[in-house]
């Protein structure tokens, strides 16, 4: 239980469903002469258990629609979980009221994907950055607030004299730096970054990534980093969580995952990274399509496309088991040693 003590954020049995059936009247249908209420849900997250340890950068990877961003938003309290719990520093936070959660708001911050939408177009940069500082330090004087804003702006490489400008006067990379500055302005311990560099040019991605790593070092931050870019993960992550269709497939230290991926999906995912090397295993082509999250497959969500699937996989949902490399994997085939 040593790992439990060190973990900053604990996600336990998290489920998140979104209704896609509209309001009550839309749900009423005639079936065989009877009026019945039918509801359909998108099962975005299905029983995820995840611990973010203090000081690490936990990367969550997976293809589009696998629930990565939903995890990020649920952890931040932007979405309420359908079931399960989220704890921060040992305290459960997912059911707190807006007022009760305030102390956690300054410890947890978020960086968003789209730097063009995440800054209010009608506010100057200084206003955008001053707002969280003022809000969380109501007693701070105007000078203190300004000094704090100047400090974070400098730390992300934005000239404090640009504060009077509006966000549309900046490039995407600069805007993302400003977004990072806004998150850092309240001195958080934990930052959720939801694909923070996927909307940026490749040349800018490295700058922003380095900036985030510098901030991690100087401010002792913990990251939950959502991405689909595996090269970023290799560069940035302490541990990696691989997700497929709302479930966690594999959780492993970055080096171990890239050296020996255990889960069949992780293997296929990693084999898709283009590399300038000879003699590496060929790209594993998965058969079929990703099943829809509306009607989840029974058993292991990956069994329909898995080359190692057998009858048990279509029946029983695999749980995470520890691997020899220090990670965890949810796969019957690995557990049984079938491959």
């Amino acid at each position: 239980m040593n790992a439990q003590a060190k973990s900053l954020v604990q996600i336990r049995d998290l489920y998140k469903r979104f209704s896609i059936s509209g309001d009550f009247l839309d749900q009423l249908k005639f079936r065989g002469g009877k009026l019945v209420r039918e509801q359909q849900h998108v099962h975005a997250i299905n029983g995820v258990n995840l611990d973010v340890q203090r000081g690490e950068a936990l990367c969550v990877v997976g293809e589009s629609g696998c629930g990565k961003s939903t995890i990020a938003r649920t952890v931040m309290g932007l979405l309420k979980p359908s079931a399960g719990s989220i704890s921060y520093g040992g305290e459960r936070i997912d059911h707190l009221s807006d007022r009760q959660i305030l102390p956690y708001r300054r410890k947890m911050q978020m960086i968003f994907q789209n730097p063009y939408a995440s800054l209010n177009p009608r506010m100057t940069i200084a206003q955008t950055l001053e707002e969280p500082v003022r809000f969380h330090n109501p007693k701070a004087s105007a000078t203190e607030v300004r000094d704090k804003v100047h400090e974070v702006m400098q730390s992300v490489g934005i000239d404090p004299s640009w504060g009077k400008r509006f966000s549309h006067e900046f490039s995407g990379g600069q805007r993302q730096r400003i977004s990072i500055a806004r998150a850092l302005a309240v001195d958080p311990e934990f930052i959720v970054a939801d694909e923070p560099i996927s909307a940026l040019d490749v040349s800018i991605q490295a700058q922003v990534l380095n900036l985030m790593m510098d901030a991690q070092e100087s401010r002792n931050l913990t990251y939950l980093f959502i991405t689909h870019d595996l090269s970023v993960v290799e560069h940035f992550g302490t541990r990696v969580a691989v997700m497929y269709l709302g479930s966690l497939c594999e959780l492993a230290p970055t080096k171990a995952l890239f050296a020996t991926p255990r889960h069949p999906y992780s293997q296929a995912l990693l084999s898709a990274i283009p590399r300038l090397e000879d003699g590496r295993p060929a790209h594993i082509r998965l058969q079929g399509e990703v099943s829809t999250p509306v009607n989840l497959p029974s058993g292991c969500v990956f069994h329909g496309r898995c080359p190692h699937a057998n009858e048990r996989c279509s029946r029983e949902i695999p749980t995470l088991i520890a691997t020899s490399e220090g990670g965890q994997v949810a796969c019957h085939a690995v557990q049984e040693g079938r491959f």
Partner: protein
Amino acid sequence: MSEQIQPLDAPPSAWQRFLDSHLWHSFTKDRVAQFSLLIFAAYAIMALLAPLIAPYNPYDPAQIDILNAEMPPSWEAGSDPAFWLGTDAQGRDLWSTILYGTRVSLTIGLCAVVLQALIGIVIGLLAGYRGGRIDSLLMRFADVQLSFSTMMVAIVVLAVFQATFGTELYQELAMVMLILVIGIAEWPQYARTIRASVLAEKKKEYVDAARVIGLKAPRIMFRHILPNTLSPILVISTVQVANAIIAEASLSFLGLGMPVSEPSLGSLISSGFEYIFSGSWWITVIPGAVLISLVLVMNLLGDWLRDVLNPKLYKG
């Protein structure tokens, strides 16, 4: 990939930004908009400075002489040079009465729209941001309100008020009542427009960012979302002021508006209507032309604003 910070020039002032804006550029090119704004400004000045410009005070019975009644305008035979637009049936100088009437009409129009906007913005923001049941409830209210025409509501309310509390009290409170009735009857226009833009805005990440900071819902609604929905508010406001002026004129024409002693443009038209067949056409036609051109320039301005601020025609 240098991390060097390039120093920039001083940021442009608000005025400089306005001169560089699409709004101003489009205005410098659009003759109709320039003309309309010019006319509207003239109306506004006339209304504001009516007591200074007008040669007579139409509210002062001492300055009215019934013997001057129905004088034609100066270009007609039998006119008096003291009244260049002629006089109405009570001997009031028509030019002065029109100046004061414009003032009354514009005041009612603007105040009614401010009231509409206040109610509509609060309800629209609440419905759009909260969503769910509150949204359904408020929008059903709006539907019910819209299913009664403004005129019908206004006629019923004003007629009942007049019958219950007597004409004397009604004449004292006419302006306030008109503002209240027109303001309350038309709020769904604002509420719907604002709800639609709020629904689009609240999906953007800056709203999530504000929530992550921990800001309360009212602050997010009014400080973050509302400023981003100002363009449609601006557009419907111009059209709604014109509509409110028309509504007031129609009610006055039906005898439910401003009293004859303090006429708006509408009640002036109405009071002259009885004399139009006796040859005194100017009492109705001149205020009518003034009213039509006022409403026309406001609608033209509204059309121009809608085109300029429409993100489909121009993305800024």
